C-alpha cells in the first residue's frame, strides 16, 4: 500500500512537470503574439491625432494581424486536442485585445461590427469548439466591449479634429452594440463586469452628440435622420 501512494504521487509529479513544460512553451509563443498585438495597438493610436492617416494605419494593422495569425497557428499546433480550456488563461487576455484591435480596424475601414466568425478567420481560427483551437465567445465579446471604450475616446478626438459627423455615426453604432448586449443573459463574471462599463461609454458618446447638436455644429441636420431620437434622448437626460 505504501508503495502505491508513492507511485501515485510520482506519476502526479510527472504529470505536473509535463504540464509545466507545455506551459512554458505556450508562454513564449503568447509573448510573441502579444508583442505584435502591442505594435498594432500603437499603430492604431494614430486615429486619435490624424484623420488622414487612418487608412494607412489600418493597412499596417492588418499586416500585423497576419503575424498574429502565424502565432495562433503555432499555439494551435501545441495544444493537445480537447485541452483548449486547460491553458486558456494564458491567452485569453491577449485574444480579447486582438479581437478589439480587429474590430477597431474593421470599424474604421467599413463602419460595421466584425462578427465572431470573421474575427476568428482573421486570426486563422474558427468559432467551432470541436476544431480545438477556436475563438472563445466570451473573449470575442470582451474584445467588442473594449471597442466601445475606444470609440468613445475616438468620438472626442474626432470632434477635436473637426469631424462632427463621426460622433453621430459612433453614437448609433455603440447604441446598437448596447442593445445587442442587452439580449445576452450574462452570468456574474468578468464579462458581466466589463459590460457594466458599457453604459458609461454610451453616455459619454451621447453627451458628445448633444454638445454638437446644441451648438449647431452639424453641417446638415437632416443628413443622418437615424440618430435623431438619440439626440432627443440626450436632451432629456
Amino acid at each position, binding site marked *: *500500500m*505504501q508503495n*502505491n*501512494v*508513492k*507511485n*501515485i*504521487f*510520482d*506519476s*502526479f*509529479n*510527472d*504529470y*505536473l*512537470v*509535463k*504540464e*509545466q513544460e507545455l506551459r512554458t512553451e505556450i508562454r513564449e509563443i503568447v509573448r510573441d503574439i502579444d508583442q505584435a498585438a502591442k505594435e498594432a495597438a500603437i499603430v492604431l493610436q494614430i486615429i486619435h491625432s490624424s484623420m488622414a492617416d487612418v487608412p494607412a494605419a489600418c493597412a499596417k494593422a492588418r499586416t500585423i494581424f497576419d503575424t498574429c495569425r502565424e502565432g495562433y497557428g503555432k499555439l494551435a499546433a501545441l495544444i*493537445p*486536442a*480537447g*485541452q*483548449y*480550456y*486547460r491553458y*486558456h488563461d494564458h491567452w485569453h487576455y491577449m485574444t480579447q485585445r486582438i479581437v478589439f484591435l480587429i474590430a477597431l480596424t474593421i470599424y474604421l475601414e467599413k463602419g*460595421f*461590427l466584425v*462578427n*465572431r466568425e470573421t474575427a476568428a478567420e482573421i486570426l486563422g481560427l474558427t468559432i467551432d*469548439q*470541436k*476544431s480545438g483551437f477556436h475563438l472563445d*465567445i*466570451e473573449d*470575442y*465579446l470582451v474584445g467588442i466591449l473594449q471597442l466601445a471604450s475606444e470609440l468613445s475616446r475616438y468620438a472626442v478626438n474626432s470632434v477635436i479634429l473637426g469631424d462632427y459627423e463621426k460622433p453621430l455615426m459612433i453614437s448609433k453604432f455603440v*447604441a*446598437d*452594440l*448596447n*442593445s*445587442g*448586449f*442587452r*439580449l*445576452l*443573459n*450574462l*452570468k456574474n463574471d468578468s464579462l458581466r463586469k466589463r459590460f457594466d462599463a458599457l453604459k458609461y461609454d454610451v453616455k459619454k458618446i451621447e453627451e458628445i452628440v448633444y454638445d454638437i447638436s446644441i451648438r449647431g455644429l452639424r453641417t446638415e441636420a437632416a443628413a443622418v435622420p437615424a440618430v435623431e*431620437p*438619440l439626440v*432627443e*434622448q440626450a436632451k*432629456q437626460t
Partner: protein
Amino acid sequence: MSAYRGNKRQHFGKAGGRRGRDHENAPVDENNPIIQCFREYATILDAKHDKYERIVKISRDITIESKRIIFLLHTIDPRKNNVRKVCEEAKERLEAIFRNHFINIAKELKDQDPYQYSRAYTNGMQEFIEAYTFYEYFCGQDISHWESIQKKLTYEKTPTEVPTDAKSTKENDNMEPSSETGLEKPTITTALHKGDEAVIMACFLHPQDFVLGLGDLSGEIMRTCVNSLGAGNSESCFQHCRFMQELYKGFLSVTSIRSRDFSHKMITLRQSLLKSENVCYNVTVRGGEAAKWGTTDDAAGALFQLQLSKDDDDEGVFF
C-alpha cells in the same frame, strides 16, 4: 396586485412617449445585423451556462451521496464484525454514483472540452474521490491510481445517435498516439472514439482533483485512527498513522503545482497527521487502555496538540 400592475404599466406608457420608444424599439430591430449576431451569441452563451448549471447540480448530488458513504464507512467496527457488510453496501452505493451521476456528467461533457466545465464538478469529484479511496483503504485494497478511476468513469454506450463529427474524430484518433502519454489523456479523444458502433463518453477526472481528494482522505483516516483507539484496537492506529505519513510524504514531493487549494490541503493534512501521531504516541507510552482517556479533551492531550487544538475541526462532518 393586478391593479397595481396595471398602474405600473400605465405609468410606463406615460413616461414612454417618445423616449420609451427608443428603448423598446432598439432591441426589436431585428433587421439590424448587430442584433442578429447578438441573438446568436445569446443562444450560445445560454446553452453554455445551462450546461454548467446542470453539471453543478449533479456535482452537488455526488457530494451529498459521497459524504453519506463516508459516514457509512465510519460505522465499521471490528467488534461488531460488520466490515464485510458495510463494505458491500459502500461498494454498492459507490457503483451507483458511477451509474447514476457521473454518467450524466459524461453525457453533458460529450463533445465538449472537459476543462471548460471542470470547475463545475470539481467539488463533487473531490468528495467522491475521498469516499472512493476511503472505501478502498478500509477494505484493505490498494488506493487506485487515478487512471483506473478514470477508466471507470469512461462509459461505453451503444449509441442512440451517431457521433456528430466523424471527421474531427478521425483526426483525434491520429493524434492520440503522439499526445497520449498515458498520464494526460485528452478526454475528447476517448470521448469521441468512433470505431465500431459504441460511443465512448468520459467524465474527465482531473489528476489534481484526485490528489486533493486524497488530501481530504487524510482527515477521514485521522478520525478512523482516533476512533479505533476509542474502540480499543490500538494496533490499527499505527497502521493508519503510517499510511498518513506516507500520504504526507507524497504531498511534500509535489512541486510546482498551480493551486491555492493544494497548500491549504497541505496544512490540514499536517494537522491531521500530527493528531494521529499523537494518538500513536499515547498508545506507546501508556498502552492502549490508558490512551483512550488521554487523547480526549484533558490536559495531556492538549499538551501535545499545542497550537493545533484551537482549529482542529474535522471538515466533512456536517452536511
